[in-house]
């Protein structure tokens, strides 16, 4: 059982355990997957699939797809570390605490991350990079600022989960407001590889998406756990509530991940 904590609440031992598990997963498979499998899926399912479906982004399934994606990674990290309580921490980017420290995700935030847990000397090289380099890149705060608590509150105040036309142009809906105003902005705030299609090269990807998932869960507890839209499968290019989210196993639908109390993790 993973109790997902804020970066600010992690002990030194928990930080080390998380970083070690990620590095080990870069070179060791678990449950038929390895770290680079996750990067491949992010690149592949960011695009529309050959049958015209947007699974991971710019569509209603953005939130449940990433919930399942994080759940799988957490299970795999638990397997490679042999620690059934290993958890993905969340980064509340509205607060002052940073995950970019020498003892955690690395203190270099402008250019090549050449020292620390996620540097080439420690075995962390980037995969399928659109930037011709082997080192993880960051450009923290160079193109935009972090979302403020006020912005988060305005996004959380949306009452409808999503609506037609079910893409990134939806202006009134929780999913698209979260995706555009919070999710996209933090990708751009960190910059470097976090701004690219292959963003999971940066381990902060998981901490960011963990916070996005936590915010969705907080929203669900206010607006209702069973609030996903669309409910029927008549909308082309969109995953309905009971359709499988590829590339995950058959039956991994938005409905199957709506209640995190059935998914073996919780938020502290």
């Amino acid at each position, binding site marked *: 059982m993973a109790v997902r904590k804020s970066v600010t609440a992690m002990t030194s031992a928990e930080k080390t355990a998380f970083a070690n598990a990620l590095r080990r997963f870069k070179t060791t498979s678990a449950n038929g997957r390895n770290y680079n499998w996750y990067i491949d899926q992010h690149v592949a399912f960011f*695009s529309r699939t050959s049958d015209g479906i947007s699974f991971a982004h710019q569509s209603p399934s953005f939130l449940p797809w990433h919930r399942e994606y994080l759940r799988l990674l957490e299970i795999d990290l638990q397997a490679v570390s042999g620690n059934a309580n290993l958890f993905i921490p969340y980064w509340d980017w509205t607060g002052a605490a940073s995950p970019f420290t020498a003892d955690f995700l690395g203190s270099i935030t402008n250019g090549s991350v050449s020292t620390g847990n996620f540097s080439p000397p420690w075995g962390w090289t980037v995969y399928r990079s659109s*930037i011709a380099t082997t080192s993880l*890149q960051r450009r923290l705060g*160079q193109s935009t600022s972090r979302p403020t608590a006020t912005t988060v509150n305005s996004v959380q105040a949306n009452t409808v989960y999503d609506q037609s036309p079910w893409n990134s142009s939806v202006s009134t809906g929780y999913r698209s407001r979260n995706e*555009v105003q919070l999710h996209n902005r933090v*990708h751009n705030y960190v*910059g470097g590889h976090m701004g690219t299609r292959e963003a999971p090269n940066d381990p902060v990807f998981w901490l960011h998406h963990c916070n996005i998932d936590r915010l969705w869960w907080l929203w669900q507890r206010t607006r209702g756990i069973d609030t996903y839209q669309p409910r029927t499968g008549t909308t082309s290019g969109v995953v309905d509530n009971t359709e499988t989210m590829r590339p995950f196993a058959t039956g991994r639908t938005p409905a199957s991940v709506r209640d995190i109390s059935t998914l073996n993790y919780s938020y502290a």
Partner: protein
Amino acid sequence: MADLNRRAALRYGAAGAVAVVTAAVGIQSVAVSGSAAAPQRAPAADPRDFDEVHKGKKIKGKHNAGGKHELHINGKKLELSAIETLFVPEDGSAPYVGVGFISALNHYDPVEIDDDRHKEGLKNLAKKVIETLGEFELSDEAARAHHH
């Protein structure tokens, strides 16, 4: 999107007509004067196109009908795709829906490109990507097409 295409069609319709007239004049001048052939003229370039150096990198942008723009940085291609998306300006002005261009490198940061307020859009996208690249070049992965 429809509006963008309509304006693009008007633009390219006009550019095409200019090119035809130029070619006809060229032939006539050869026939009348018998002098050396007039220089061959390429089809009129889009005035927004650019081929210049920014922060030590050569950026080359070409605007094509239907939003199928092309961008190369130091000779390496950056594949672009257009999405219809919500823009929420950071200055607090009203959110609006527009067409934004994304690539492998500005994947969460769509850039508007048109022939009006955002006629510098493609160049701005190139400059943004150069900030991300820093001392490095685009890899082949940046040229891979994907659909949104």
